């Protein structure tokens, strides 16, 4: 049985000490972030003309990133909620990462919407004059509700750890951190009554965030689905988006596990078993995701509606390599790597996860852009740059800035809260983990 002391000795050094490599990585992320700020200033000063978006293709990289990050968030919520509710034995070392994935992705995602809006001064109108009929209003309500729920759920799961850190006298941290733990622990002592209240609240919120994740990501899918645009107007877009989100989220969770395991030397806690279990989950979801993708494109292709045919033709010609990577390589390769036991090493599973996550991002790209490049009405002036979208350095800089802030937040959080839940692990059998 793992004792609290042993756990604290293993898991708190990352909170107590910060090495030069941490600072260097953070600095690199920060520099990328600064470039992003410069790009943003350029965009605000000169307008959206500095982006590749035009009258015809009005959504570009920003929306792709928005959908991608929101998907990661919902996947994190689904995974953490399901793992918590079903008391999955191996969940304990990875559940905190899934929770962080949920919240941090949810914080980053909406920023891409702000980058995409040409008139930011009109943003308050969404709240001041909402129309319930508008899917954009649904999205605003859904995301804000989800944000509150996910923060609440994360906080509930952190309280016990904050209390443990508050009471750990050997913890070598700055006084402000101690004060922070004291404040955030809410005076939690861990008596039976408190435990019961906290456990009930966590169970309720775990169930809630699963439901919210499905609804909210479906709402996001409906923003596309309720339009009559070729490629978007699909009844399966809601579940298709949800399954795709879980696919990418599982992939990113595996990548996070690999990074934290390596950087914070958590080999004893995050074992091959976790990678294999999540890898198998990734394979199952990949099968579902592949099935949805095939079903969606098959019905469109067979229907032979003029605009759908044009879109599919565009995907198989102009976007051939991206389409094949997103929908064939990105699905089949992770499945092949994980399905055969001989390939199942930690590294190969992580590589499969990287492929899956990248493919999913590309999938988002080929969902958003080619459709907008296939308008129903012929446009008057058919200049290539009005029809074909290609992202500018401004958009790439802001995308990389978003990713770097994402990384920075994961780094910062790991300096405040243990990346593996101490309270969850307390009752865990070390032999059981090492299996």
């Amino acid at each position, binding site marked *: 049985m793992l004792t609290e002391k042993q756990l604290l000795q293993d898991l708190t050094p990352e909170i107590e000490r910060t090495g030069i490599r941490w600072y260097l990585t953070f600095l690199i992320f920060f520099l990328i972030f600064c470039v992003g700020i410069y790009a943003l200033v350029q965009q605000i000063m000169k307008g959206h003309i500095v982006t590749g978006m035009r009258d015809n293709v009005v959504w570009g990289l920003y929306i792709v990133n928005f959908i991608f990050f929101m998907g990661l968030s919902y996947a994190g919520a689904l995974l953490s909620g399901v793992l918590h509710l079903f008391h999955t034995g191996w969940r304990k070392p990875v559940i905190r990462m899934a929770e962080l994935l949920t919240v941090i992705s949810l914080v980053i995602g909406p920023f891409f919407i702000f980058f995409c809006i040409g008139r930011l001064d009109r943003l308050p109108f969404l709240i001041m004059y909402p129309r319930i009929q508008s899917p954009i209003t649904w999205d605003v309500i859904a995301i804000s509700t989800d944000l509150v729920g996910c923060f609440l759920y994360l906080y*509930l799961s952190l309280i016990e750890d904050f209390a443990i850190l508050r009471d750990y006298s050997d913890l070598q941290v700055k006084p402000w951190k101690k004060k922070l733990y004291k404040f955030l622990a809410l005076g939690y*002592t861990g008596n039976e009554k408190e435990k019961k209240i906290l456990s009930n609240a966590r169970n309720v919120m775990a169930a809630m965030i699963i439901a919210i994740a499905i609804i909210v990501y479906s709402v996001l899918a409906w923003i596309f689905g309720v339009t009559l645009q070729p490629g978007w107007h699909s009844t399966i877009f809601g579940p298709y988006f949800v399954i795709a989100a879980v696919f990418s989220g599982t992939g990113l969770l595996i990548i996070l596990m690999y990074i934290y395991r390596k950087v914070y030397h958590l080999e004893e806690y995050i074992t091959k078993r976790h990678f294999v279990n999540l890898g198998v989950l990734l394979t199952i979801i990949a099968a579902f995701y592949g099935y949805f993708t095939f079903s969606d494109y098959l019905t469109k292709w067979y229907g032979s509606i003029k605009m759908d045919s044009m879109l599919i033709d565009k995907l198989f010609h102009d976007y051939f390599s991206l389409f094949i990577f997103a929908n064939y390589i990105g699905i089949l390769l992770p499945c092949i790597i994980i399905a055969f036991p001989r390939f199942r090493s930690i590294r190969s599973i992580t590589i499969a996860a990287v492929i899956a996550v990248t493919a999913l991002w590309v999938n988002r790209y080929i969902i958003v852009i080619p459709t907008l490049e296939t308008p129903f009405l012929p446009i008057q002036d058919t200049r290539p740059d009005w029809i074909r979208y290609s992202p500018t350095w401004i958009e790439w800089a802001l995308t990389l800035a978003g990713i770097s802030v994402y990384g920075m937040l994961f780094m910062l959080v790991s300096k405040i809260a243990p990346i593996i839940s101490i309270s969850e692990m307390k009752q865990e059998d070390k032999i059981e983990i090492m299996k």
Partner: protein
Amino acid sequence: MKRKLALPLLLLSLFSSGAIDSYSQGNAKINPSVQLQYFKDNEENSILKTTLTYSKNRMELPLKGMKIIFYSGAEKKARLSEITTDDKGAAVYNLNQGSDFLINNNGFWPFAAEFSGNDTVGSGISVILIKDVTLNMILTEKDSIKTIMVNAKKKEKGKEVPVSGETVTLYVPRMFSFLPIGEAKLDESGSASVEFPSSLPGDKEGNITILARFEEHPEFGNVEKKSTLKWGLPSTYAVPAGHRALWTKTAPKWMIYTLSILLSGVWGHYLFAIISLIRIRILAKKHKVEKKELFIK
């Protein structure tokens, strides 16, 4: 080898042509387009309109604040006025301001609009020949058949003669554009008739406007006659009170109910979680007090 050479040559040609192009664009004056048009409206008011534009990235952009000189006559020119173009690059001269215009041997009014250019924009001129035409429209209804009769006469050597063989287009203005309802081909007497369709909606009283036009006619320019009368079907555009749809101000009831139930369900659970946190805090305080009391005892 050919392939090896092809790429550098292609790049070189691209760069060189681009450089030459940018150099020439940097020094050349803008080549403007001057378009002179003649308009005659329902009240027999005639105008000359000049539009000054230039082409950039295959778009016609207006040149504002440019001085356009209007002339009457072609070979022997009489200056009419100098007018500055507005934001849309248009300069309008009201022909009723002048009295007699020069007439050429064929009985046409030659008009010219000239832009003499400046440091950045080149010069340009546009000339048109116009013959004054009088367009009339008579609307009659007999045995519930509504007929539009148009008649056109032009002046030839001081006499009015009928315009024959030309086409007058008939329109009804709708919300976004003019709906063509027929074309009247003028006979030898300069007249033509077209039956008005009986199924067109008008305003709530059935009022409808009918337009008869010569459009961009090489001899007459743009001439218009219009009349409004109760030939349309009365229409009511009022949205019934309490009507709810995706496009109305108030959302459908089912949507409001669904959203309210969902949101109250979710936020209710959030409230439960927040209350749980408050209870933990209260219990912790209570526990602290009890501990203190125990310590004092």
